[in-house]
C-alpha cells in the first residue's frame, strides 16, 4: 500500500471534490427549479385567477411578466434570458419562423400534446400550422387565445355593414379626418397602413409601394384625432370623441362591450388586398417552452393545466381584455361562457370574421416600414 501523506491526501480529495461539485451544483439547480416557473406572456396569463390555483396545487413559485409586444419579448430571450424563462407566449409566426430556427425554444412531445389539438376548434386540427416547425416535424407550442384584429367602430355612428363594406378606405377618405384614433400598437399599425395603401403587408414591397405607404402614413397620422392605448381608444369611442379606431378587434373592444357598450364593435373588412381577397388580419397565440438549459418541469405541466376547460375559460376572461379560446370547441368549456361573455367576445360573428382574415405574419421589410411610420407620426405632430 503506497504511503499517503497529508499533501497527497489533500490533492486527491480536492480532485474528487472538483469532479463532484459541478454534478452537485447542477443537481441542486435542477432541484431548485422543480418548484419554480417563469412565464413571459401577454396579459392574462399573469393574472392571479390563472396562476393561483396552479401555484397552490404545485406548491410552486410562479413568476409571470406581461409585455405588450412580441419583438420585445423575443429580444429578451436573444439577450440571454433563455436561462431565466420557461414559457414564452407570443403571436403565431414567431415560434415557427424565428424562435425555433434561432434555437430559442424547445419542441414539445407530440404524443403528449397533439391530442389536445384534436379537442380544439376545427381550425386548430393537428398538425396545426402555427404550432409546427417549418418542416412540419416538430410541435413547437400550444394554441389557446385568438381573434380577428382589424379595426373598431362605434356602431351608433358608423353601421357595421358600412364599416365592413368600406373597410380600410375609411382611412383613405380625408373627409373622415378628426373622426378616428390610432391605437398605439405599432407592429399592427404597420400592417394596417399597408392595407390602407392597398397592398398585402406580408410580402416584400416595391419602391412604389413604399412611397405610397409613406404618403398613407402621413395622411393617417395627420388626420388622427388621437393616438393612445386601448383604454383611451374605448373611452374616446364611448364619449364620442372619435367614431372608430385602428388597430383593434375582439381583444381591444371586449372590455368596453363587457362594460355595457355593445355599440363598440370590432369589425373585419369584407374584402381587401390579401390572398383570397381578404381584408382582415387575425392573431393566434402560441405558447412555447424556452430553450432553458434547466427548463422547469412545471413548464409542460402548465401547458396541460391551461387546456382544462375551466382554466381555459378563466384565461379567456382573465383581467384586462377578453378573448375567444380554441378550447371552446369542448362543450364543457363552452357551457361556462355566459351570454354576456359570448357577446363581449363577438361570438356571433367570430367564425366569419376569422374566415375573412389572414393570419398574422412577419412583414419582411418591417424595420424600414416601422421607421417610416415613426417619422410620419413625428412629422404629423403639433397640429
Amino acid at each position, binding site marked *: 500500500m503506497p504511503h499517503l501523506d497529508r499533501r497527497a491526501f489533500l490533492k486527491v480529495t480536492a480532485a474528487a471534490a472538483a469532479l463532484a461539485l459541478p454534478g452537485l451544483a447542477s443537481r441542486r439547480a435542477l432541484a431548485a427549479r422543480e418548484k419554480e416557473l417563469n412565464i413571459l406572456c401577454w396579459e392574462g396569463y399573469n393574472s392571479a385567477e390563472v396562476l393561483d390555483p396552479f401555484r397552490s396545487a404545485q406548491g410552486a413559485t410562479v413568476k409571470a411578466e406581461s409585455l405588450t409586444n412580441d419583438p420585445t419579448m423575443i429580444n429578451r430571450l436573444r439577450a440571454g434570458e433563455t436561462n431565466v424563462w420557461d414559457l414564452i407566449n407570443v403571436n403565431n409566426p414567431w415560434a415557427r419562423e424565428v424562435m425555433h430556427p434561432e434555437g430559442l425554444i424547445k419542441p414539445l412531445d407530440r404524443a403528449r400534446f397533439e391530442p389536445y389539438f384534436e379537442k380544439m376548434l376545427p381550425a386548430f386540427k393537428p398538425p396545426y400550422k402555427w404550432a409546427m416547425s417549418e418542416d412540419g416535424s416538430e410541435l413547437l407550442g400550444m394554441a389557446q387565445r385568438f381573434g380577428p384584429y382589424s379595426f373598431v367602430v362605434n356602431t351608433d355612428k358608423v353601421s357595421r355593414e358600412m364599416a365592413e363594406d368600406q373597410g380600410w378606405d375609411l382611412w383613405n377618405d380625408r373627409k373622415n379626418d378628426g373622426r378616428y*384614433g390610432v391605437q*398605439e400598437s*405599432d*407592429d399592427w399599425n404597420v400592417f394596417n397602413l399597408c392595407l390602407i395603401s392597398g397592398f398585402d403587408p406580408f410580402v416584400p414591397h416595391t419602391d412604389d409601394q413604399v412611397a405610397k405607404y409613406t404618403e398613407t402614413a402621413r395622411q393617417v397620422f395627420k388626420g388622427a*384625432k388621437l393616438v*393612445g392605448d386601448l383604454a383611451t381608444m374605448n373611452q374616446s369611442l364611448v*364619449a364620442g370623441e372619435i367614431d372608430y379606431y385602428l388597430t383593434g378587434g375582439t381583444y381591444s373592444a371586449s372590455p368596453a362591450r363587457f362594460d355595457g357598450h355593445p355599440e363598440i364593435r370590432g369589425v373585419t373588412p369584407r374584402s381587401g388586398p390579401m390572398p383570397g381577397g381578404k381584408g382582415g388580419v387575425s392573431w393566434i397565440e402560441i405558447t412555447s417552452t424556452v430553450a432553458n438549459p434547466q427548463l422547469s418541469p412545471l413548464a409542460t405541466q402548465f401547458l396541460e393545466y391551461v387546456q382544462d376547460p375551466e382554466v381555459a375559460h378563466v384565461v379567456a376572461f382573465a383581467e384586462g381584455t377578453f378573448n375567444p379560446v380554441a378550447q371552446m370547441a369542448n362543450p364543457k368549456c363552452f357551457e361556462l361562457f355566459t351570454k354576456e361573455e359570448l357577446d363581449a367576445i363577438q361570438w356571433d360573428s367570430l367564425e366569419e370574421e376569422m374566415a375573412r382574415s389572414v393570419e398574422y405574419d412577419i412583414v419582411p421589410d418591417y424595420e424600414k416600414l416601422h421607421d417610416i411610420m415613426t417619422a410620419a407620426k413625428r412629422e404629423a405632430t403639433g*397640429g
Partner: protein
Amino acid sequence: MVAAAERSAQPAAATPARPRSSLGFRYSLPVLLLLAVGFIAPLVAVIAFSFVEPRSFDLWSEPTLANYRTIFEQTYYRSFLWSLAFAALTVVVLAVICYPVAYGLARVFGRWSNLVTLLFVLPLFISENVRLYGWVLFLIKGGVLLGGVKALTGIELTSILFTPPMIVFGMVYVYLPFMLFPMTLGLSMVPREVTEAAFDLGASRAQVFREVELPLAMPGIIIGALLTFVLGVGAIVEAKVLGGQSVIPITHDIEIAFTYAQNWPLGAALSVLLMLVVGVLVLIVLKRFDLDRILGRR
C-alpha cells in the same frame, strides 16, 4: 497598499487633516460603490450602446457613428425642440403661477400656510398616471365638465383634450410642487428688515419686488426652475395621456426605439444627445447664476 497606507499615516500625526479625509473617503466607499454600480455603470452602458451597429445588441462590435448620423439625417430635431419648448414654457408658466402662492406661503398665510402646503403636497401621493387619467375623465366629451355643461345648459362644447396646450397644462399641473417649494424657500430667505428698509428709503412696491425680493429669492427660483425644466424635458405621460400623442416629445421617440423598433443603439444615441443638450443648458444657467455666490457662500 499596506506600505502606502503606512506612508500616508506617517505625516498624519503631524497634520490631523489628512487622516480625516482618508477616513472620510473610506466611509464614503459604500456610497461611491453604489453610485458607480447604480448610476455610472448604466450611464456608461447607454453611452457605449449609442456607438453600436443599429438594431444590434452586441456591445463588443466595431464602434460606429451610424446612430448619430440617422438622428441628424431624420426629423428627430422636431421632438427635441418640442420637448425643450414644452419644458421652457412650463417653467415660465409655473414661475408666474407659483410666485404669488410662494409669497403667500412665506409672508401672508401665517398659520394657514401649513394647511396650504399640505394641499399642494397631497396629490404627490397619488400616481401621476391616475391623476392625468382623472383629468381625461373630467375633460373628455360627455365627461364631468362638458357633460355637466350640456346637461345644465344644453350647450355642446368641443373638448380641448388631445391638443398641445393640454400637454403644457398637464406638465404645469404635475410639476407645480417642484417649482413652488424651492421658490417658497427662496422667498422666505429674504429678510423682512431689508424690504422694510427699502420701503423706508422710498422704494415703490415694484422697485422692492424688482431690486430686493427677486434678486434675494433668486437661488430658490433658479433651483425650482432647473428642477422643473429637467423634469419637463423628461416628461412623456402628459403628451401621451392628455395630448393624445398630438406631439411626440423626444422621450417618446426614445421609448419607441427601445420597444417597437427594437433599436436599442438608436434609443441610446437619442438619450446621450438629450443628456448633452440638457447638461449644456443647465451648465449655462449655473454659470450665469452662481448658486454658491448668491447663497452667500463665496
